[in-house]
């Protein structure tokens, strides 16, 4: 099975800054890592491709996103594709999906595309389903289990609010996965060594044949128009030791005000 995994490099710390001019994130000078859920997607891909096949990781981002791709190569991915071009900067989820979909078309076809259910920085969870819609293939979000039924079908479990839905999907399809899916492995020393021998291809906007108007900030239907730094100022009432009983009175009052009692 030929599997593509979409991975995003995200900030490792909480000290993310925003560019007040453009309202987009400043990515320089912050430790970065592979979005945690994307590692679960990679693990599933490696598992599915074990019986024959290949795993290609894709990431759109600045040149340093190559580090994230290397990390995936050291975990066992076969090759990697970096989508990097100044013109891609400031993309919202739609423009990101357009770019990724073009790269998947160019390097495909793939039997299966895996993504994380959401990224810890964008937190939109939109890129996966948007890519699927653009490629016109069926998709599922909230995936917690993937099993092969036969050469042409997967049995997929989704964790929804009301219960677990089990669905049969034909290939090709796209699945956005949650961490319940599997346990992620740590890279081995050998993996690290191998990673440097594996190819990373880089595609620019031109290589993908995408018009300037379709990508990056220019291609994005949404605009961030304001960034506020909320201060959740609450007047904290603190209770300790013998005051706890009084604190509990206040909790009861709050519950009553909220019509919960």
């Amino acid at each position, binding site marked *: 099975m030929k599997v593509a995994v979409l991975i995003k490099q995200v900030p490792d710390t909480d000290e993310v800054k925003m560019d007040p001019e453009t309202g987009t994130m400043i990515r320089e000078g912050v430790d970065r890592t592979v979005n945690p859920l994307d590692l679960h997607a990679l693990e599933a891909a490696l598992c599915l491709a074990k019986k024959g096949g290949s795993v290609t990781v894709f990431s759109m981002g600045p040149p340093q996103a190559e580090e994230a791709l290397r990390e995936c190569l050291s975990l066992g991915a076969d090759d990697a594709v970096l989508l990097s071009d100044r013109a891609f900067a400031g993309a919202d989820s739609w423009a990101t999906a357009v770019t990724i979909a073009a790269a998947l078309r160019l390097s495909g076809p793939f039997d299966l595309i895996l993504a994380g259910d959401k990224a810890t920085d964008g937190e939109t969870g939109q890129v996966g389903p948007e890519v699927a*819609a653009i490629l016109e293939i069926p998709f599922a979000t909230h995936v917690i289990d993937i099993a092969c039924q036969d050469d042409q079908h997967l049995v*997929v479990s989704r964790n929804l609010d009301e219960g677990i839905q089990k*669905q049969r999907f034909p290939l090709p399809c796209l699945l956005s996965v949650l961490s319940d899916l599997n346990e992620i492995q740590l890279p081995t020393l050998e993996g690290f060594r191998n990673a440097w021998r594996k190819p990373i291809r880089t595609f620019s906007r031109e290589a993908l044949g995408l018009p300037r108007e379709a990508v990056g900030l220019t291609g994005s239907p949404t605009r961030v128009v304001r*960034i506020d730094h*909320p201060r959740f100022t609450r007047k904290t009432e603190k*209770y300790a030791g013998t005051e706890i009983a009084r604190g509990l009175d206040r909790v009861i009052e709050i519950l009553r005000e909220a019509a*919960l009692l």
Partner: protein
Amino acid sequence: MNFQSKIVMIFGEVRTNGRIHPATFELTAKGRELGEALSDNSRVSVILTCGKLEDDAHLPINYGADEVILVEHPSLSFPNPEVAVKVLVTLIRERNPEILLSPATPQGRCVFPAVAAKCRTGLTADCTGLEIEKETGLLLQTRPAIGGNVIATIKTPNHRPQMATVRPKTFPVPEPRPRKGEIVRPSLPQECFQSLADTLDFVPFQDRQASVRDAEVVIAGGKGLRRSEGFSLLRELADLLGGSVGATRPTVEAKWIPYAHQVGLSGQAVSPKVYLAAGISGAVQHLAGMQTSRKIVSVNKDPEAPIHRIADIALCGDLYEILPQLIQRIREERGTLDVEI
């Protein structure tokens, strides 16, 4: 003021038991308000897709809808994003809504991105605020970003519809009042109802508890519980208040409780009326999912724990002493009420 007819569309949610999800009413009322700010001649349409509706289709009208578009089909008995996407895209092309909203439930978060991609328009995820900009008539969509550290305001200037998913419990649900409106059953091409993926099985969750996202009160626990059994204490309290149990990531990783209960950056974002955090330190990644809660109560024996700093009521002490007392107090409270009645 604009006198042109403008449509605000709400993608309502019907549960697998055929009942309308209350977040539908919340968004319908908000949609009415947005519509009125948009034009003197606006229309609010609520789309309900399901196998078979077991509620009164008129209900959304009492919360402000002018029209309920009811799409019942066996292919929609279980969540079917493929079909939902096709139904929505068809209705959007027919009716050209200005604004299209959905609750940020798994259904909305799954279906809406695909709809936005097909319609080549923008979509803002998990909004906690919606407003019409006076000068432009554009929808201002606010959402917490980067783990709630910033609030971003986003708009979709040139593409239609302006789409957003909205975190349930963001807006107040008004009292329903009898109103007039239409119930429409559109005839859609048969092709809309065909899907490549079929549902083999749907196993509803056993615990009758509301999901953390839908609950009015969330009783959440962290590593401070020290063992998985600690969650039964939280569940007792949650049951007493008709709420739900939340959890931090390490407790989920320790398999004390399923992932669905995880609150935070890599879990659910919630804003209940009351959030009680017991044995939770208050790491930014956890705060990201709960700091918009109306009221926060913290129970932690470490007086310096960051969770105390963002709480309305901070109780410094052992949760295994404090929570049983709270349960006792609530029982007494209920008891005295019973006596009074």
